[in-house]
């Protein structure tokens, strides 16, 4: 069975070799040099974040299999996901990637998380499939990742990557300027929770950068690594003024606001507990939508100062990057926070 798959891949690769116009070479975010035969007609993304790049870059029609961060099963997919991707039931995958299944898709390019699936990447490379390994936990890495992904697909994608980079810088510059203008500005202390009230983000994570870009102080930035477990006393010590709950996980503002043990925290007393909204991808992860996440955060932290028209930005974003029209209710959800 494996040989059939192997033969098939070699045949396809060989076929491409005959008809291919060129081979593109790039260095991925783990330092590997990758050769990608052009054009890429079929690709897969095991990297839950990278899958969304496909939509932003307008190459989602070539996607044959995808892991979507925040969506582990069809049951978890929102209506918006289905509208974005009608082929979702065929494309959606989750859990550990299976080599034979991947070969069966006929994908010639695979996006992979360099931190978690390096082994899988190596095995697929040995079979002659091009693999780009990503490692994104900072905004620069996000822009670089978009560029890399775009390069694999050619001109149209590359242009959209540039537009995104420009948008990104525009948003950051705007926020920065607004904050500068209104000085002295008090930067609020922000706590970013995970899937549990006592799980918090560390200073190494993307969320940490987002908070600081939005003009806040990330209270748990002293922590390192991934999500950290803390206790209530430590949270009391940090005394955040604003608590942000991610768009995934079971924690709801009401449960924290109503918890008698948390009442001494400033954020609870002032009712400043907010759950990040979500339409497609979770905005606190390094997906293109994190652009909107920053806008949302900035508005939350400095409502009087930051001058975005949130409604406009959101509509524009979804229209351009996802070719997606926000419904009225979706817009309401996004703005109600």
């Amino acid at each position: 069975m494996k040989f059939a798959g192997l033969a098939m891949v070699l045949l396809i690769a060989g076929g491409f070799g005959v008809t291919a116009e060129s081979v593109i070479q790039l260095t991925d975010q783990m330092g590997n040099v990758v050769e990608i035969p052009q054009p890429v007609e079929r690709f897969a993304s095991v990297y839950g974040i990278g899958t969304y790049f496909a939509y932003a870059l307008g190459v989602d029609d070539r996607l044959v299999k995808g892991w979507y961060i925040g969506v582990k099963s069809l049951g978890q997919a929102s209506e918006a996901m289905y509208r974005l991707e009608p082929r979702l039931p065929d494309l959606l995958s989750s859990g550990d990637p299976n080599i034979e299944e991947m070969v069966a898709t006929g994908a010639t390019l695979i996006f992979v998380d360099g931190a978690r699936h390096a082994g899988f990447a190596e095995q697929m490379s040995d079979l002659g499939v091009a693999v780009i390994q990503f490692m994104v936990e900072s905004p620069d890495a996000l822009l670089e990742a978009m560029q890399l992904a775009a390069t694999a697909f050619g001109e149209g994608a590359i242009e959209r990557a540039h537009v995104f980079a420009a948008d990104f810088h525009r948003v950051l510059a705007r926020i920065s300027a607004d904050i500068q203008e209104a000085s002295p500005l008090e930067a609020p202390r922000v706590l970013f929770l995970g899937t549990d009230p006592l799980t918090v983000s560390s200073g190494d994570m993307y969320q940490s950068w987002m908070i600081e870009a939005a003009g806040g102080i990330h209270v748990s930035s002293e922590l390192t690594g991934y999500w950290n477990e803390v206790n209530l006393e430590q949270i009391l010590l940090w005394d955040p003024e604003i608590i942000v709950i991610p768009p995934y996980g079971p924690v709801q503002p009401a449960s924290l606001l109503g918890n008698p043990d948390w009442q001494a925290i400033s954020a609870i007393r002032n009712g400043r507990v907010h759950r990040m909204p979500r339409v497609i991808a979770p905005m606190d992860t390094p997906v293109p939508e994190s652009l909107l996440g920053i806008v949302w955060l900035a508005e939350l932290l400095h409502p009087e100062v930051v001058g975005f028209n949130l409604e406009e930005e959101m509509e524009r974003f979804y229209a351009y990057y996802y070719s997606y029209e926000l419904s009225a209710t979706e817009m309401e959800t996004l703005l109600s926070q």
Partner: protein
Amino acid sequence: MRIRGRSTGWLLVLLPILAFLASMLIGRYGLRIGETFRALFQIGDVPDVVRALVLRVRLPRTLAAACVGANLAVVGAAFQGLFRNPLVEPRILGVSSGAAFGAALALLMTSHLIVVQASAFAFALLAIGLVLLIATRFGSSTLVLIIGGILVGALFNSLLGLIKYVADPLSTLPSITYWLLGGLSRSQWSSIGPLLVITVAGLTFFLLVRWRLNLLTLSDQEARALGIRVRLLRTAVVLAGAMMAGVSVALGGMIGWIGLVIPHAARALVGPDHALLIPASALLGAAALMFLDLIARAALASEIPLGILTGLIGVPIFLLLFLRLLRARGEAT
């Protein structure tokens, strides 16, 4: 070497008191002694945050640490006598494995603490139920109980592995792993109720039967010849122990070594007479875990899993005690 008499008694009473005070006064959030006491005894005016910290964060957690420490130590002491084996700890009957599985199962589906705790406790009881079932079928000698415990423990460990396998590696699996490492960070008044109740009931039971436990260290024949209903007493001890260990694991995760080391330390202080050993174990266990939990929650900004601390500190202490035991035995003959 055995320290006897009044000084030991004072030491045993003083240690938990010291531990309690330290636990209430020391933490990430610097508090002054005065305001801590005022908050604790509800005297005078105290800032809200101090009151919340003292009464809603430190006090329940300290009580939880004391209860879990006392429970595990007493059950360890009782089981060591019951199984006539000084290397036994509460885990031996599969209670912890059952609880671990129950918690992991619940974590797969929800993150409500109450559900996780209830599930852990329920499966701990199920585990001991299975062991007792094996005992009724094959006779409740200590050998059968131990083998039953090993089998049931192995069963639940495998099932736990299965759960880890299907758990989402980004959110659920870390939760399970973290729970397994042990910790008391979720000890609030709303969650420690069952622990308090079962601790009081369990400790009362063991205090009442403490002298009689001596007789379980004799062979079954001798004990029965002395008029003891061995099977009944043994089953009662196993059940009570399972409940105390089960509720402790349900709240605190896998906290090991306390049940093994503390009884040995207590025995070194007061001897093997359970009439003294049981209370001594309870006091020492409470003190030890309060001190260790203090380190777990105050040393660093993030929580150090308690199970890691008990292991790291428990192992060298156990080695020391064991070496002394071996040397003493060597001198005897």
